[in-house]
């Protein structure tokens, strides 16, 4: 049996039916990791022993006839900015190279409660700052479709692990596109849930008001399954919402006739790779054939999204990063004269270039005399962007666009930060508005995958999942 090619849902059924054991599932994926890692480098830490032990516990449950959770026996790869108790959580930074959290993120607790198996911690841009997974202290991750190229970022390790069949499911975090862009680059499904749907407790923050944890899968249903497992209110996160989570998987049908979709004309006016534009327009036609009513609309403030995002995210980031001072945990400089010197040297020696750049950007935006012009103004622009989407969602169920303006680029190809920042052109506005979106494969060019972004209103994940599922079926299932 080709275990690693099975979907997460198939794995769960076969484990439940005792066709295969959870240990066999985990072992097959561990073998795959051993085979692929030298080329892909998707993982920072592989938790082989813990995973096998967890698999044995699931097998024991099956033997004793206990009820099984949603993720029974399914390996899940975890982005390395999500705290795992007793397993180092590095954020791909020298600063946290040896940091072992004494507590578990809520999403990890939930996965374990649902009998999912944590198979390892995945590579990322350092502290989630980047769009290529090249800024990791542990080396770049490679795109499984073409190892010369980047997998996108910052959740590049999670996307690559799923694409390379090292794990059927993975968790990432998305602050400005960090799940959707790597999903598009690697040719998998990635969901950025509505702000407040998934607990952020234990997730090392990049920009707290924008961050959200979300799933990767090789198809829509698998991704929906992991979303189902991690969504829900958490009293330890006061920004998580109290609401009933719908049954995502059983609401998926291939009938989406009459669904109303909008295409923001601003998206098509931006600089886009022609392959991506063609693929996008082609997909729009397929959706029309499925009975989706599609109209062009204007989201006038979306053009301010990128600068707005970079001001707000770096401002929040700059204060989040202050706790890494070398005193209580993390990297500490060896030689220092006094306490200030200890702070300065530890941070200088352990943070990468991009981290320092963004700390400086954010510090500037928040500083006296600048805050009104930058941070506070950015908060107002954010409201305008949010209002644009709110207005659109009064009439439409979903908004469509490409996920990325460009195809996966080569490792080392982009050195200019602003060019790199433009990778998030289509994704950042969703985080600013706090709404949900997913990216799914909708075509390919030169063997490189292309992603479609489907955006939904706050807590209307069901709409984007339905549209994605129907489209996926129509496109012929797993790409």
């Amino acid at each position, binding site marked *: 049996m080709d275990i690693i090619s099975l979907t997460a849902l198939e794995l769960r059924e076969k484990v439940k039916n005792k066709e295969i054991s959870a240990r066999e599932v985990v072992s097959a994926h561990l073998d795959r990791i051993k085979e692929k890692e030298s080329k892909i480098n998707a993982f920072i830490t592989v938790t082989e022993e813990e995973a096998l032990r967890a698999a044995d516990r699931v097998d024991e449950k099956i033997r004793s006839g206990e009820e099984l959770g949603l993720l029974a026996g399914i390996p899940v790869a975890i982005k390395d*900015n999500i705290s795992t108790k007793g397993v180092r959580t590095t954020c791909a930074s020298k600063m946290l190279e040896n940091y072992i959290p004494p507590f578990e*993120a809520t999403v990890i607790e939930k996965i374990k409660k649902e009998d999912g198996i944590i198979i390892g911690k995945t590579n990322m841009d350092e502290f989630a700052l980047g769009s290529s997974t090249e800024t990791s202290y542990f080396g770049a991750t490679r795109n499984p479709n073409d190892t010369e190229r980047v997998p996108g970022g910052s959740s590049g390790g999670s996307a690559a692990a799923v694409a390379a069949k090292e794990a059927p499911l993975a968790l990432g975090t998305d602050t400005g596109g960090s799940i959707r862009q790597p999903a598009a680059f690697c040719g998998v499904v990635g969901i950025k849930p509505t702000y407040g749907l998934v607990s952020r407790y234990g997730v*090392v923050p990049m920009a707290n008001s924008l961050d959200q944890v979300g799933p990767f899968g090789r198809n829509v249903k698998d991704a929906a399954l992991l979303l189902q497992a991690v969504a829900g209110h958490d009293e330890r996160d006061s920004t998580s919402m109290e609401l009933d989570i719908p049954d995502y998987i059983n609401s998926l049908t291939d009938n989406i006739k009459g669904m109303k979709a909008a295409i923001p004309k601003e998206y098509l006016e931006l600089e886009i790779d022609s392959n991506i534009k063609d693929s996008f327009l082609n997909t729009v036609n397929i959706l029309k054939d499925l009975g989706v009513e599609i109209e062009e609309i204007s989201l006038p403030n979306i053009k301010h999204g990128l600068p707005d995002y970079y001001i707000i995210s770096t401002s929040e980031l700059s204060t989040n990063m202050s706790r890494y001072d070398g005193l209580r945990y993390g990297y500490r400089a060896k030689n220092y004269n006094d306490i200030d010197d200890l702070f300065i040297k530890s941070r200088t020696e352990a943070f990468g270039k991009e981290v320092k750049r963004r700390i400086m950007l954010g510090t500037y935006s928040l500083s*006296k005399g600048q805050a009104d012009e930058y*941070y506070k103004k950015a908060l107002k622009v954010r409201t305008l962007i949010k209002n644009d989407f709110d207005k659109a969602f009064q009439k439409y169920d979903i908004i469509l666009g490409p996920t990325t303006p460009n195809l996966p680029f080569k490792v080392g190809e982009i050195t200019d930060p602003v060019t790199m920042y433009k990778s998030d052109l289509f994704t950042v506005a969703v985080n600013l508005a706090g709404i949900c979106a997913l990216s799914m494969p909708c075509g390919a060019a030169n063997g490189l995958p292309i992603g479609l972004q489907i955006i939904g209103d706050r807590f209307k994940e069901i709409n984007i999942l339905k549209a994605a599922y129907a489209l996926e079926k129509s496109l012929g299932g797993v790409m």
Partner: protein
Amino acid sequence: MAYKTLIGLEIHVELSTKTKMFCSCANEFGKDANTQCCPVCLGLPGALPVVNKSALEYAIRAGLAFNCNIATHSMMDRKNYFYPDLVKGFQITQADVPLCSGGYIEVDSKNGPKKVGLIRIHIEEDTGKSIHTEKGDSLLDYNRSGVPLIEIVTKPDMNSKEEAQDFLEKLKSTLQYIEVSDCKMEEGSLRCDVNLNVIDEERGLKSNITEIKNLNSFSAVGKAIEYEVKRHIALLEEGKNTTRETRRWNEVENKTVVMRTKEVAADYRYNTEPDIAPIVIEESWIEEIRNNLPELPHHKKMRFIKEYGIPEYDAGVLTQSKDLSLFFEETVKFAKDPKQVSNWIMGEVLYRLNEEGIEIKDLKFSSKDLADLLKLINEGKISNNIGKKVLKDMFETGKKPDDIVKEKGLIQISDEGELKDIVNKVLDENQKSVTDYKNGKDKALGFIVGQVMKATKGKANPQLVNKLVLEALKER
């Protein structure tokens, strides 16, 4: 020259909630270092703060007791700076919109009662504590990290050290009354910084404001104000001025010394705390808290004067602390004369409390016991002086006054026959004093009475002894 002093205070008060501001760690003073900590109050990556509702309630209670407006919508902000005792590199506090604003506290001034205005009361978290060893090491204890605080900022409405000290007394007793804080300066649960300058309105002169920190008692506040006022005036007199700076009170040398100048204003880069949802307070909750506020010291003082007929001074002393006022009221319930109760509490009881450095709640005896003691005195069973000795015993052993009197045989001797014999014996032994008295030396009478009391070990009824001695002297 007619200089006027302007004093404003910034007071930090630790709230006595069971748990910390943003996590469920115990809020307790004096535990072993770093034993009251969790990922949240240690600021570990990914841990999130959740506002403690009772900290909000305590802060609102304080706001209402001090006549403030309560904001129905506020938020928490990050105040950014680096310091070893600050676990996140920022303190969670309130910048633009404080929970409480406006309000006042009435203090006594030379010209009668006066309102000292409050600018704001906001909520925030405390930092950890640095401990510097003799060897030169710095140790860090994060038990205090995340303890809920309110910061109270006054207008510069106080004009003397007396007003500032009275303000602090009123503030402290009110906060204790409403059970928001124990306000122990020595444990750091009340900390006060002074902002001060002097002006000479006639000549249009004014000194630059200085801030004084490290004030460990109300008396230190008074001394520091006195010192600074003199320093400010002296500089103005010399045609100079003070520097805008923060100074530290040096308790040993009784002077203030420069800590840091304020020429470069610190930039704390305040930004909204994105991990905490906006704080929305329902009007109905504010009303509920208002309705549940206990009687405040000022109101209680007025009631004591009216209800018990005791002087304003007595009422003021007795209502300074909630425990003391309760002890007084309970004692009065069992005793007849409120003024007598007041005298004993303000005199002997407070004296012994201060002497032993303990609080009313640490007493080994009850208010009923004190009332019983007064009853023994009022019934003439023991004298006032013996009463004081019995009270001392009650402080030490917690025994009932009746038992002490019985055990030690302290019952007053009021038997005339028995006393007459003793008086005659004393007169026989002190012929010289008898002669002195006869020769018009009145002092000798006191000596003889004293000798009789001594012979009875103080148990004789003093009035009776006086009468018997006079009678016996007449007969000689």
